[in-house]
C-alpha cells in the first residue's frame, strides 16, 4: 500500500518544529515512524503535514545528569538498550526494551515516539509510570513538565497539547530493585499483559513496593493497594499472591481476539507474582 498524499518538513530546531506543528490540526510529528507510517500505509491515518524530528540533534541525546537520567525523545530503542548509563541507572528500562518488537523496529523506534503514541499494550509507558518519569513538553507557550502518571490519558491519548512536542524524559534514580515480566503470543508482539514490580528489602522485610501493570487497560495501571499489601512483610509466594489477587481490583480489564478479560486478569496476576518474586530476589 502506498501513503496518501502529505507534505513533509524536516526542521533543524525544536522551535522550528513547534512553529510547524502549532495552528495546524493536520500536522503530525514524525519520530521513528514505526506506528504512524504503517497506519498511513493502511490509510487509517492521513496527516497533511509530517514534521520529521530526525534532524533535531538535541532530541537525540542521553544526558547522564546528577539528579536524573534524561533521555531525548528521539533516542532510538536500540541506542537506549545499548547505553551504559541506562543499564546503570534504569535497568528496568533496559529489561523492558527486550520485549519491544524486533531489532529492525528498535533501530528506528524512539522512546519519545512510543510514549507519545501511548498504545495501551506498549512497554515504554509502563516503564515511564513505574519509574516516575517526568515528561518535558515544549510548545508555543513555553515549556511544561508533567509526571508520567498524568501523561497517559487513554489509548493513544496523552496530555500533549496542540502544537506541543515531547522533547525529553527524565528518569529519577530509583532506590527500588525492579523486575519486568511480560507475556505475548510471540516474542516481540504486543503484550497480553505485563508487569513492572519494584521494591526494597530491609532486614528481610519488604518496603516501598511499586507495581505497574500494562496491556490490561487503555493505559498503565498503578496498583497502590496491592503494593501496600507488601509493606513490612517478608516476601514469599504467598504474600506475592495475596498482593496479586487485588492488583486489578476496580480495573475494567480489556478483551481482544488474543485474550479475554478473565484470562488477561489471571495472566496479569501470575505475572505480578513472578515479577515481585524476581524483584525481591526470592528464588522460587
Amino acid at each position, binding site marked *: 500500500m502506498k501513503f496518501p498524499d502529505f507534505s513533509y518538513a524536516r526542521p533543524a530546531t525544536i522551535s522550528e518544529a513547534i512553529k510547524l506543528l502549532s495552528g495546524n490540526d493536520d500536522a503530525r510529528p514524525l519520530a521513528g515512524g514505526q506506528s504512524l507510517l504503517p497506519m498511513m500505509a493502511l490509510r487509517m491515518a492521513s496527516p497533511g503535514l509530517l514534521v520529521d524530528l530526525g534532524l533535531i540533534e538535541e532530541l537525540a541525546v542521553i544526558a547522564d545528569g546528577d539528579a536524573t537520567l534524561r533521555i531525548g525523545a528521539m533516542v532510538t530503542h536500540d541506542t537506549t538498550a545499548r547505553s551504559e548509563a541506562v543499564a546503570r541507572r534504569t535497568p528496568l528500562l533496559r529489561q523492558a526494551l527486550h520485549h519491544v518488537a524486533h531489532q529492525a523496529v528498535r533501530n528506528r523506534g524512539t522512546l519519545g515516539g512510543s510514549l507519545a503514541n501511548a498504545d495501551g499494550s506498549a512497554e515504554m509507558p509502563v516503564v515511564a509510570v513505574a519509574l516516575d518519569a517526568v515528561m518535558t513538553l515544549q510548545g508555543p507557550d513555553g515549556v511544561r513538565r508533567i509526571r508520567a502518571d498524568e501523561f497517559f490519558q487513554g489509548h493513544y491519548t496523552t496530555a500533549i497539547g496542540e502544537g506541543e512536542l515531547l522533547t525529553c524524559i527524565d528518569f529519577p534514580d530509583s532506590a527500588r530493585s525492579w523486575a519486568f515480566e511480560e507475556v505475548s503470543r510471540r516474542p*516481540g508482539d504486543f503484550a497480553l499483559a505485563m508487569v513492572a514490580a519494584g521494591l526494597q528489602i530491609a532486614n528481610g522485610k519488604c518496603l516501598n513496593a511499586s507495581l505497574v501493570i500494562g496491556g490490561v487497560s487503555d493505559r498503565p495501571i498503578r496498583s497502590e493497594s496491592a503494593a501496600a499489601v507488601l509493606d513490612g512483610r517478608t516476601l514469599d509466594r504467598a504474600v506475592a499472591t495475596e498482593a496479586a489477587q487485588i492488583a486489578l481490583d476496580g480495573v475494567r480489564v480489556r478483551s481482544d481476539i488474543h485474550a479475554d478479560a478473565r484470562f488477561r486478569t489471571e495472566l496479569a496476576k501470575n505475572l505480578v507474582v513472578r515479577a515481585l518474586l524476581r524483584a525481591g530476589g526470592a528464588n522460587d
Partner: protein
Amino acid sequence: MSGRAAYIADLAFPDVLHVSILRSPFAHARITAIDVSAARAHGGVVQVWTGADVLPRCGGVMARMELPGFVPTVQPILAHDIVRFVGEAVAVVVATSQAAAEDALELIDVDYDELPVVADIASAVAAEVIANEAVPANLVYRGHRCQDDVDNDFARAACVAQGRFSNNRVSATPMEPRGCIASHEWTSGQLTVWSATQMPSFLKTMLAIHLAFPEQRIEVITPQVGGGFGQKAHVHPEEILVCLLAIELGRPIRWIEDRRENLLSATHAKHQINEMAIAVDADGRFLAMRNRSSTDGGAYNSLPWTHLVESHVGASTLTGPYRIANFNDESLSLVTNKCPIGAYRGVGWSAGHIARETLIDRAGRELGLSPFEIRRRNLVDQSDYPFTTPTGLVIREGTFVQTLDRLEQMVDYRSFRERQTAALAKGKLLGLGLCVFNEVSGVGTRALSFLHTPVTTHDTATVRVEPTGKITVTTPLVAAGQGHLTTFAQVAADAFGVPLDDVTVLAGTTRNAHGFGTVASRGAVFGAGTIGRAAEAVKVKIRQLAAHLLQTGAERITLSEGRVHVTGSPEQGMPLADLAGAAYFADATHPPEFDPALEATAAFDPADVVLANGGHAAIVEIDLETCLVRVDQMFAVEDCGKMINPMIVEGQIRGGIAQAIGMTLLEELVHDGEGQLVTTTLMDYLLPTSVDVPDVQIAHLETPSDLVPGGVKGMGESAMISAPAAIIGAVNDALALVGASVESFPASPQRIFDALQRASKVDAVPAL
C-alpha cells in the same frame, strides 16, 4: 544467495499502468449505487471499472467438479448487484502510479444495503439465510465415501473415543503475495501474462476460455515465485481482470497484491469441523470409525479445486495406514459469506488427521496402552499387502511399523515419560504427540479419481542432447522456492551419465512443454517421470547409433561418466559429445533408417496412486501460568522412496513443520459474527517465527516406487498432513495430565486457559 532473483514486483515495463482494487467492507450486501465519477476525475487515473463494465467481457470464474449433485458457482470478476464476502472485488482503478490508483480508490462511493450473513457452519447448515443464491441450502456437495454399518462395532466396543474438532481457518500466507502483469500487443494479437502462479499451463487454458481468447496467442511467464503452498494454484479473478484491462487499454497492467489484500481475498484454507468417533476393542484394536466433516467453504468455489478440497478430499484417507474395517462418513461442503476456501499444503487432510490421532491417544489412555503400542497394534503391516482401505486405496507398500519404531527410538519414549513426571512435580506440563500417515503424492489422474475429484492431469517434458553433448530440458513445472531446477537437472544428468553442469533446465514459460502444475506433491514425481521418459526415448536413439558405430547390440550400450560405451568396457566407446556430433553432422555414421533427432517429448501420469508415508512426533511444554505452548522437540520420519536430493527433502520437512506449528498454535483468520475479518495484518495473523520452531530431527526410510522412473515419490505436503496432528496430540497429552483437552484450534493461550478452567484433575499439579 545473491539477492538477484527477480520476482514479479521486480519486473519493470515502460508505459505500465497500476491497478488498485476496491473490496467489499461487508460480508453480504446489495450494491444499490456506485459513483466512480470522482475517481475517474482524479489525476493519473486512466480507467475505472465496476462489475457492470466487466460483466459483458467475462461472466466470472466458473468452478465446477464433474460429480452428480455438485453445485457449481460463478465468482464475478468484479461484484455486480451483490457482494458475498468481505474482500470481494467491487471496483478497479487503473492509474499511472500505484499511489494515484489508491488515492482514487478512496473517492469511489458505494451504497450498500446489508443482507443477513451466513457467518459459520452452524448457520450454513440451518440454511435460514442463504449465502449465495446459486447454492440451494448453502450446500455445494454432500459426500459419502463409505456407508458401512458401524453400529454393531460401536455397540460392542470396549472403548469409544469421540470428539468434535473445530479446525481454524488459515491462510497459506506466502511471503510474496499474489501478483500478475499482463500485456496485450494488438499488432500481433499476443497476450503475455506474467503471473506468480504454480499452474501456468492451466492458467493459460483458463484465460483462453474465460477471455474467449485464442490460446495459441497466450503466453504465461512465471518469474521467481516467493512461495505458493497451494494458494497460487488457483485461477484468481484478479488474473482475468488484469488481462481484460490489458486488452482494453493496450498498455501493460500491473497488479501486485499487498498483505491486507492477501489476507482478505486470497483463498483461505483448512476450515473444517470433524465430529469423529472410533470404536476400539479391549485389545486396543480399531473396529470402526465414524465421521461427519463440514467445510466452511466461503462464498464461491475456487478454480480448480472447489470446496471439495477440504472435508471431501480429507475423507479419502481418514482411516490412514490403520486397519479399520468399517468406516461411515459424511462430508458437507458449505457456502458461507467468507473468502473462498482453496488449496493449502496438506489440503483437507490436516484437520482430519488431528481428529483421528487425538482420538487414538484418548483410546490408548483409556485402555492403558502407550501411544506407540496402540498404533502398532493397528498399523497395516507388510504381511497385509496388498491392503485395501475402506475408501478403496490399495496399500501395496510402505513402512508404517518401521516408521513407528523409529519414532519411538528417536523420542526415547520411556525416558520421556520419566521427564514428564518430573516436570509435573515442578508445575510444568509436558506432552508427547505423534501421527503416522500415508500421503497420496505425485497427484495425477488416478489419485484425483481416488480422491473423488475427477480431473485428468498429465505433464510433459522435452529433453534434447545438443550437438556438443550438453543436455537441454524444458519443463512446464515451475518452482516457488523448492529448488526444482536443481532436482530436475539431477534427474537428467543421472539419465545421461553426465555432470550436473552439462544440463540446463528451461522452465517458467508456457512456450515450454505443457503441464498441470507444481501442486499436490507433484513436482518431483512428474519431473522425474516426464524427464525420465523423454530421456529414455532419446537414449534409444543414442544406443542405436552407438551400437552401429561399435558394431554391437543396442542393449549392450551404457551411458556413464560422459561416455557412451559397451557395458562393462568404458574404453570401448566414445564421449557423448562425439556421438551427438555424429548424429547431427555426420550422416555417414548413421545406421539405415536412423532418425537423428536427439530430442523427445514425453508425457507422464502415474499408473496408480503414488503412496509415500512417514510419521511425526512432537514434544511440547505448557506453562500453566501463562498458558503458552512451546514446541520443544520435533521428529520426522519420511519414506518418499528414492530421494533425488536429501537436502531439499529435509527443507520441505522443516518448512512444513514450521507451517504446522503456525496452524496449530498461532495462526487464525478470525471473523466476527457479521463475517468481518478482524485479522488483516501480520500483527494479528500470527505466523511462526524462527524462535517458535525448534530444530527438527529427521530420519529417512526408503521404499522406491515402481510407478515413477527413478523410484521417487512426492513428499511436499507430508509435514502439513501429519505434523499438526502430532503437535495437537502433544498438547492434549500434556493437558490430559490435569484432565483437560482442546478440540478447537489453534491451541492459543486463551484456549489453553479455557481448557484448564474445565480441567477435572487440577490436583495433579502440586501446589507450588
